[in-house]
């Protein structure tokens, strides 16, 4: 298998280990491109990609845009303010108008869970979910997995602990879907108000005691406290959160000596993670960012390359191979 089954990337839920493997292998090859003097390959020349961001973003948006540019695709960026969305145009109308301009891929970030799925059902273009509400953020999940694999090797049986606001975190959900598919043991930990009921059904362990959650982990993924998504106060104060769940030097000392610390960004320094830990050599936060570009290049390349079809009948396959070998 060397392609994807779907022409969209909506989430990691239901994606097979094999498909993830294709994306991660391709990403490994793409990482080198960003180290070149000329950081550009002509693979997606002539493709048009629209980045439709209804929510604020620095990392994801810059990462997607760089990934697109390094593959030579043409890009258009649309954000909520400054577009007709601000005038009240519906998501459907916005998307259909963009499609009428003959685009190949839409990368969408939206506050509502399911917005990318809605577009996928509507459009001819490929849809990439860059974060939908508190649902999924598949490319973040993939880049976290890529970083974990780079550091830990095969993830089967590896212990990954996710700390923080699990209920509001699309990063947590994509990580959980991806990591459990690859055989990692995922533990979630955080204030009880931020652990969704029945989360165990996704195949994760819930641990309320922070020490127990981190002491034998191979990696700890520290989530950002998403103040913007909380409708009620789920914990008394940021200071208290920092005291009870913040990752500081004392807590790093409880971890295994080779445990790595991840954070999807943006960091609230001094809240979920202290300054010194975030900047320590245990943290792989900037490595995650570097890997993010390669992973997004891989996703866009594979989606534009076309969907994996059922294997053709043997004769046709042989014929194809032969015509192909002409390009020697």
């Amino acid at each position, binding site marked *: 298998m060397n392609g994807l089954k779907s022409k969209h990337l909506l989430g990691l839920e239901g994606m097979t280990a094999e498909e993830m493997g294709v994306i991660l292998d391709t990403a490994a*090859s*793409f990482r080198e491109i960003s180290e070149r003097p000329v950081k550009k390959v002509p693979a997606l020349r*002539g493709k048009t990609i629209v980045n439709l961001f209804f929510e604020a973003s620095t990392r994801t948006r810059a990462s997607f845009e760089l990934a697109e540019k390094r*593959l030579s695709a043409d890009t258009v960026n649309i954000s909520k303010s400054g577009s007709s969305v601000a005038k009240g145009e519906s998501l459907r109308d916005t998307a259909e108008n963009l499609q009428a301009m003959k685009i190949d891929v839409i990368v969408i970030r939206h506050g509502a869970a399911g917005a990318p799925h809605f577009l996928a059902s509507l459009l001819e273009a490929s849809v990439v979910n860059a974060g939908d509400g508190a649902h999924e953020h598949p490319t973040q999940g993939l880049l976290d997995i890529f970083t974990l694999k780079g550091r830990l090797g095969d993830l089967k049986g590896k212990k990954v602990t996710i700390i923080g606001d699990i209920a509001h975190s699309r990063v947590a959900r994509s990580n959980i879907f991806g990591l459990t598919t690859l055989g990692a043991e995922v533990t979630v930990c955080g204030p009880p108000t931020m652990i969704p009921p029945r989360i165990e059904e996704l195949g994760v362990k819930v641990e309320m005691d922070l020490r127990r959650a981190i002491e034998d982990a191979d990696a700890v993924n520290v989530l950002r406290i998403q103040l913007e998504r909380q409708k009620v106060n789920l914990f008394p104060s940021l200071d208290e959160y920092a005291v009870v769940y913040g990752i500081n030097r004392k807590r790093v000392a409880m971890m295994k000596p080779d445990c790595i610390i991840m954070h999807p960004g943006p960091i609230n320094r001094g809240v979920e993670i202290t300054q010194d830990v975030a900047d320590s050599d245990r943290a792989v936060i900037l490595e995650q960012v570097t890997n993010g570009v390669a992973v997004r290049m891989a996703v866009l390349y594979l989606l534009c*390359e*076309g969907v994996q079809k059922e294997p053709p009948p043997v004769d046709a396959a042989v014929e*194809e191979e032969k015509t192909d070998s*002409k*390009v*020697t």
Partner: protein
Amino acid sequence: MDADQIRRAVKRISHEIVERNRGTKGIVVVGIRRRGVYIAKRIAEYIEKIEGAVPFGALDITLYRDDFQVTKNIQTRPVVGTTEIKEDITDKVIVLVDDVLFTGRTIRAALDELIDFGRPKQIQLAVLVDRGHREFPIKADYVGRNLPTSENEIVEVRLTEIDGRDEVLLGEMEE
């Protein structure tokens, strides 16, 4: 070609490279994935024995292919491999190595990719087999064997590193 003939051809090419460039100064041997890389590695090893060590690199041209928009069946598409050019190639003499030279389209892609890494002083081309039928104005500087073929024949190069043994086979394409 059998294993001995391949060995002699690769050895001769290595000698020719050293002779034409009057030594190994500034030479970087770069193989095109997949089989070109192994031939390039062998050439680099021979050159090391003859004259001295030369840097070695690998090029994956998948992203530079001109049939990306044409070939819709991705079953036959290769998975993107890694390009490893660790040297600064500016002002170097690049010896590009591939197994079979046919239409010249692969070499065109490789030239485009190489130029993204710097401005080499010169690029030379070494191939194990030149089977003719060029579609681009491209010519090899070092050729292991000129093999006149018809367009519906298949030249298959097998190398120990990938296929378990060294040989070059000429087959008929079944219509």
